[in-house]
């Protein structure tokens, strides 16, 4: 049986499930779209002292419901912020180590959590030139990552065409060996499941299925062998309360259509 799609959209499910992963008091570096929505949702629910950082140079804003910014670089990102500062300086906070979680969307991901937002096909003769890294490469190089994305075979590939934002590279100790001595993939949230990464081989594995989703359904929508955790659980579906707050934040469904 599928999840009750009539009750909420896939994007709403993503936003709610990822918001639950955030703890009060954390400093979270959030991208635009679902991440921005999820951090704001967490702030309004269980994590009122969660601090949001936006790439545009914003520390600790409260985004106004119904006035979501089209990127992390417009004035709407600065509402009730504690500080605004140059882009380079807010990015450097990642390198300095002040950030608990980096939170982004993803176009294409592989078994080691490497993300591609640069090229589909051969980078020298690309089938599709995607927009590029933005801060993604920096965020995923320098802190622990949550990625929220749709669970589709074409997005969950054995090996990404191009590593824009590094996950665990080729697994094992390869990330640290490449000089990335901190951070790494923490969680991947999709409309089907919640995933983490094995502590040794660093491959993606399913930690929990969303209500009504089967193992086969996950496997059929994944382009590589995906392991299931020994203690596989099921997530609680979005509550009426969570959905109500979420819909107030994004009444025009700018990010959640």
């Amino acid at each position, binding site marked *: 049986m599928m999840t009750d799609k009539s009750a909420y959209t896939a994007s709403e499910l993503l936003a709610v499930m990822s918001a639950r992963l955030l703890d009060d008091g954390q400093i979270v570096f959030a991208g635009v779209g679902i991440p921005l929505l999820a951090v704001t949702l967490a702030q309004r629910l269980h994590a009122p002292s969660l601090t949001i950082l936006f790439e545009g140079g914003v520390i600790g804003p409260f985004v106004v419901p119904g006035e979501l910014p089209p990127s992390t670089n417009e004035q709407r990102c600065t509402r009730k912020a504690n500080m605004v*500062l140059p882009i380079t300086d807010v990015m450097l906070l990642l390198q300095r180590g002040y950030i608990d979680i980096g939170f982004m969307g993803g176009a294409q991901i592989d078994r080691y959590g490497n993300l591609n937002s640069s090229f589909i096909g051969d980078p020298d003769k*690309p089938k599709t030139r995607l*927009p*590029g890294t933005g801060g993604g490469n920096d965020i995923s190089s320098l802190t622990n990552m949550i990625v929220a994305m749709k669970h589709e075979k074409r997005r969950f590939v054995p090996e990404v065409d*191009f590593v824009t934002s590094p996950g665990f590279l080729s697994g094992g100790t390869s990330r640290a060996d490449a000089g990335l001595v901190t951070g790494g993939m923490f969680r991947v949230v999709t409309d089907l499941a919640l995933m983490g990464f094995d502590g040794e081989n660093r491959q993606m594995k399913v930690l929990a299925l969303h209500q009504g989703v089967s193992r086969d359904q996950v496997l059929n929508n994944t382009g590589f062998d995906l392991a299931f955790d020994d203690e596989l659980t099921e997530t609680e579906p979005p509550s009426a309360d969570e959905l109500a707050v979420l819909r107030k934040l994004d009444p025009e469904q700018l990010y959640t259509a």
Partner: protein
Amino acid sequence: MADRLQVKPYLDLRAETQARDRGLHEKVMSLEEAAALVHDGDHVAIGGCTMSRTPMAMIWALIRQGRRNLIASRSIMSNEGDLLLASGVSSHVVTSWFSQGIVWGISKVMRLHVETGKARFDEWSHMSMGLRYRAGAMGVPFLPTRSMMGSDVGKRAESETREMTCPFTGDQLVLLPALNPDVAIIHVQRADSYGNAQIDGLPFMDMDIAMAASKVILTTERLIDNAQIRRAPDRTRIPFFTTDAVVEVPFGCAPHECYGTYEPFFDQMNDYAKLVSADPDKGAARYLKNHFYDTATWEDYLERFGTAAMLDASRRGRSIYDD
């Protein structure tokens, strides 16, 4: 031309700076006069980020004057990047992200030009763009970073970066080469006639690109008196001696936003996206004709958006001060 992006020898950089007119005097001029300070082949750094404080009026003037072979760099490029490529003003961009904005999807104009090999898109991480400008502003040939390693973004930039083992700790680092743009074009809320600029809201990378560049062209919503600058010197973000030109251009970022003054013109941005999605080549050409080539003045350009759109954007823009 790409040698414009190579690290400038320090003594050349110093000599160039010494030779610049750094006096405290009037630099006010027209958009057309300021645009003439940009030469074919120059590396032009564009201030602001995505849809914010984009120096659109200066880009309008550069496109109208038919500048060629500019290398355009910016923290993040929105559809001003489309217009630079489609007009033939630039076929080489250096940035971290390039599309109108995530809610409009991937830029079809960028795709057309980059996928057919007509344009070159050098991709650097956002922090790397910032550190490259900052190195340029600091007068050092590079800055080290702990980012860009292990990834293909780093690999693709390998011919321009170096790896280093830290002599103190043994840590692995990547060295990012300084950018000293030939010209920085920056839009601000207020500037005086000498080129002291105040920036409200997000400063993006603008202080660094101003300090790094060999020439700075400021466009400003309002031209204010130097006495007003001196009353609140803590608000000055760009000092007069880096500035070569000051142009007063109200709504100088339209249809993008200028913090506290106007938000993006969302309907017009939607219209643009629709136009170029249907046909990136002809759509962009039509937009350029209507909004750039067929508008003799900046006022003409703004009239294409209409009073209602301007009022709506400015009402939303000023609402930031309601909190």
